[in-house]
């Protein structure tokens, strides 16, 4: 409806969501899980509908697709990667299987070189073969940062191509072709074998290749920015018709052969995505089951969620699980902002976490307070931290007395910050994406802070401009709401992006602190480790440091809900993607 409510769930894979809602990973609690596709009852044919409030997928161009749900959707229907996550429910889904390649990659030279061999008989939608050169070309597009925006930067950062003085790669992508020779040396094709030469040891590089940014693109079909409207398919479906804000219609790709694909089992004849439906309308479609062959790509609003999950007749049409994301408030510790540890601590103790959880559906639907930017689902890399929510003075509803005591300390330890935090004419600024839920959250936050004598004000930023604004050091406020999930089962994809300047998602501006160089050196060392146990220990320690410095506060290990109509079968939760395993969905007759 209104702009503020658009994009209810706009879950970036990994980089979440500027918005309210909710969405996915099982630290054990899979509440409404249904069984995966049962081969005996599976039905072919029919039309499968998807409904969403969003006007469009964030991106359809594989090189620019970096949103969990969209990756899973398009990887299941339109494009194929060298390797894929196994399309099964449970933790087994986090293991890799070959897709375009015949294996899951062969590392050599201390994991600085990776080679993959391509499967035979894979074709584009016009019947032409998918070649090694297509993969090479597809990967190169990520370097054209003037055209290919928003995509993951792992390949740009890891491939062995020198950096220019301004920090960007000297290779400018296949359109400008500057530095093309360097790229052609870093990624080479020999027959059906593609080789990636990296600038560091990268023990789990093949996981980075599950991103569509590493999928092949046919050069003659590449239309630059416009490729986002019509990606060329090598998967089981192709685009029949597409109108932004209205409908995406996928039809069968007749050139695709089941024999060439061990990952996808395309059952429906047609797949239709309807965009731009208002949240209220979507809720009603799902509650009334008025279109039983529909899957909700968003999540229901809290009130409807409650009704849906209370209805026993809908037990087989819903799931409620922990998602891969941690939602938190990043604290801007740069001088002139929250450069005072005591004030940061005071904010943490004053925070009314319970109020915010209740606002978004309670602990049943929204999640629980966390103690770590790394989620327990990462297993190896997670350990409970000390301090923060384990502090005896911590109260989930806020502890204004403790906060006041800390503020009193701040009065002498950092008078300037103290003054700003408590002066009604100044106050601290909290960046929030503009949505109905966040506007209400601001009420709860302000009330809790006022109880501790902290003056909190808010910058509401339109969702589409949110991260661009808060990542601008001149525009960021004192705190910024954010969310992040690991890109794959290694905390390297959490600690590095969140707490190292070059990681791309460091919104605490911690490089201003004296301890930063040592911290960065420790992260770099951990990235290069090939001993996984050693590496896990390093991540645990680095996460503890981040919490102790209050670079982030009040993490919430969030949950997500998915609902679908009564005639949708084969639903399971694809853990690593944090959403449905789209490739196995079918329509019941």
């Amino acid at each position, binding site marked *: 409806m209104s702009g*503020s409510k658009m994009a209810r769930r706009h879950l970036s894979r990994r980089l979440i969501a500027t918005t309210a809602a909710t969405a996915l990973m099982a630290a054990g609690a899979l509440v409404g899980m249904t069984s995966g596709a049962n081969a005996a009852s599976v039905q072919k044919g029919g039309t499968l509908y998807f409904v969403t409030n969003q006007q469009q997928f964030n991106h359809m161009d594989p090189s620019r697709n970096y949103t969990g749900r969209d990756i899973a959707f398009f990887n299941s229907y339109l494009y194929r990667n060298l390797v894929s996550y196994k399309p099964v429910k449970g933790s087994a889904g986090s293991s890799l299987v070959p897709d375009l390649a015949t294996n899951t990659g062969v590392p050599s030279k201390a994991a600085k070189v990776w080679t993959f061999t391509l499967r035979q008989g894979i074709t584009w939608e016009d019947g032409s073969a998918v070649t090694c050169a297509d993969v090479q070309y597809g990967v190169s597009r990520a370097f054209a940062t003037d055209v290919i925006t*928003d995509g993951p930067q792992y390949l740009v950062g890891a491939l062995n191509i020198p950096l220019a003085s301004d920090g960007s790669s000297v290779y400018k992508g296949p359109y400008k072709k500057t530095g093309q020779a360097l790229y052609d040396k870093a990624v080479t094709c020999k027959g059906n074998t593609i080789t990636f030469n990296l600038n560091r040891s990268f023990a789990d590089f093949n996981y980075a290749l599950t991103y569509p940014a590493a999928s092949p693109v046919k050069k003659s079909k590449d239309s*630059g920015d416009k490729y986002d*409207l019509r990606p060329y398919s090598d998967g089981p479906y192709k685009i029949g018709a597409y109108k932004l804000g209205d409908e995406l219609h996928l039809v069968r790709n007749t050139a695709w052969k089941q024999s060439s694909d061990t990952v996808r089992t395309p059952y429906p004849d047609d797949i239709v995505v309807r965009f731009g439906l208002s949240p209220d309308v979507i809720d009603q479609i799902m509650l009334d089951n008025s279109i039983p062959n529909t899957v909700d790509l968003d999540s229901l609003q809290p009130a409807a969620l409650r009704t849906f999950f209370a209805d026993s007749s809908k037990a087989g049409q819903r799931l409620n699980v922990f998602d891969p994301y941690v939602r938190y408030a990043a604290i801007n510790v740069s001088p002139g902002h929250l450069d005072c540890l005591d004030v940061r601590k005071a904010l943490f103790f004053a925070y009314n976490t319970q109020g915010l959880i209740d606002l978004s559906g309670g602990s049943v639907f929204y999640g629980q307070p966390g103690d770590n930017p790394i989620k327990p689902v990462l297993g190896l890399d997670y350990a409970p931290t000390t301090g923060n929510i384990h502090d005896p003075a911590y109260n989930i509803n806020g502890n204004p007395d403790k906060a006041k005591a800390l503020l009193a300390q701040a009065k002498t330890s950092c008078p300037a910050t103290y003054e700003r935090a408590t002066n009604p004419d100044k106050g601290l600024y909290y960046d929030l994406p503009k949505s109905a839920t966040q506007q209400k959250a601001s009420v709860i936050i302000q009330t809790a802070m006022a109880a501790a004598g902290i003056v909190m004000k808010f910058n509401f930023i339109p969702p589409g401009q949110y991260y661009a604004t808060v990542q601008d050091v001149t525009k960021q406020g004192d705190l910024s709401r954010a969310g992040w999930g690991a890109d794959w089962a290694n905390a390297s994809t959490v600690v590095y992006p969140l707490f190292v300047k070059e990681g791309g998602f460091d919104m605490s501006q911690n490089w201003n602190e004296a301890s930063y160089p040592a911290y960065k050196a420790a992260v770099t060392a951990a990235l290069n480790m090939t001993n996984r146990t050693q590496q896990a220990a390093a991540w645990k320690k680095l996460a503890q440091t981040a919490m102790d410095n209050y670079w982030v506060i009040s993490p919430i290990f969030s949950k997500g809900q998915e609902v679908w109509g009564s005639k949708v079968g084969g639903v399971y939760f694809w853990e690593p993607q944090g959403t449905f395993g789209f490739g196995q969905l079918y329509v019941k007759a």
Partner: protein
Amino acid sequence: MLKFLAKRLTATVVVIGLISISVFLIFSYLPMDPAALTCGKACNPVVIAANRHRLGLDVSVPVQYGRFVKGLFVDRTWGEGAAKFSCPAPGFGYSFNRHECVTQLIKEAFPVTFSLAIGSFILWMLLGISFGIVAARKQGKWQDKAATAFVVAGVSLPVFVTALLTLLAASKLGLVNPIEFGRWVSPFTDPIGWLKTFYLPWIVLALFSSASYTRFTRSNVIETSSEDYIRTARAKGLSEKVILRKHTLRAALAPLLTLAGIDFAVLLGGAIFTETIFNLPGLGRLSINAVLTDYDLPVILATTMLAATLVVVMNLIVDVLYAYLDPRVRVG
């Protein structure tokens, strides 16, 4: 007459030029940086600079304006190498958020807005004028009082509230097919579907807008009825019906034309609230999405200029028509 036409035409062209310049200036000097806003997640100064070049914002504002005007008349190209593409003339630029030439976006949105505008326009003229005539002829009777109540309600209630309430009531009654809600279908391929999409917004807009027409018609009919030439007609023994049809209405409704023309033009520029609430993919929603979600500058510029131009052009048309229609103007 020709001289009058030529003069008005020149003035209109000048005004349109001025509008485009001022809209361009307003949006160019706002503290919003589309290059930074579309920079994406891996943002750094290098990407912003590249972006600024890509968006054509790395040159001075007059040069940007020059390119914009040039794009209206000749094809304009963006990008380099394989990523090169062009928008054919008449072009309003390219939307990097929607990966489409702005002209194409407008072409898609305009039929929606036009359908909304034409339907509600016809409805509200019919309603407004007939209520107004009835009220004028039954002055002081219950019909007149009912019309007064209708006018006050129509003028008072903000359209976003009436639209919202209508929509909620309709969906409660099951009149809204959720999956087709607000969906554009062409009246030529699916006339029933077209009617289904538009009848609710038509009713809301028409009820809302016809109130002032009722008021206007009523007072004009009453006023004209007391004029000398009507009295003369009556004295000649013509029937009331003939007088009303042949004399009163003609004089009373001619001034309505100005109003109706401008209101119609404003509607064609996009009914922001109605389109937003009824989920219609017209110009109003195109522009509002451009502002509220991604600050899509080319779309904002184009829709603003288009809306203003429509009003100016309609002004011209109305002026010319008016000269033909109103007997007093013609005599003068």
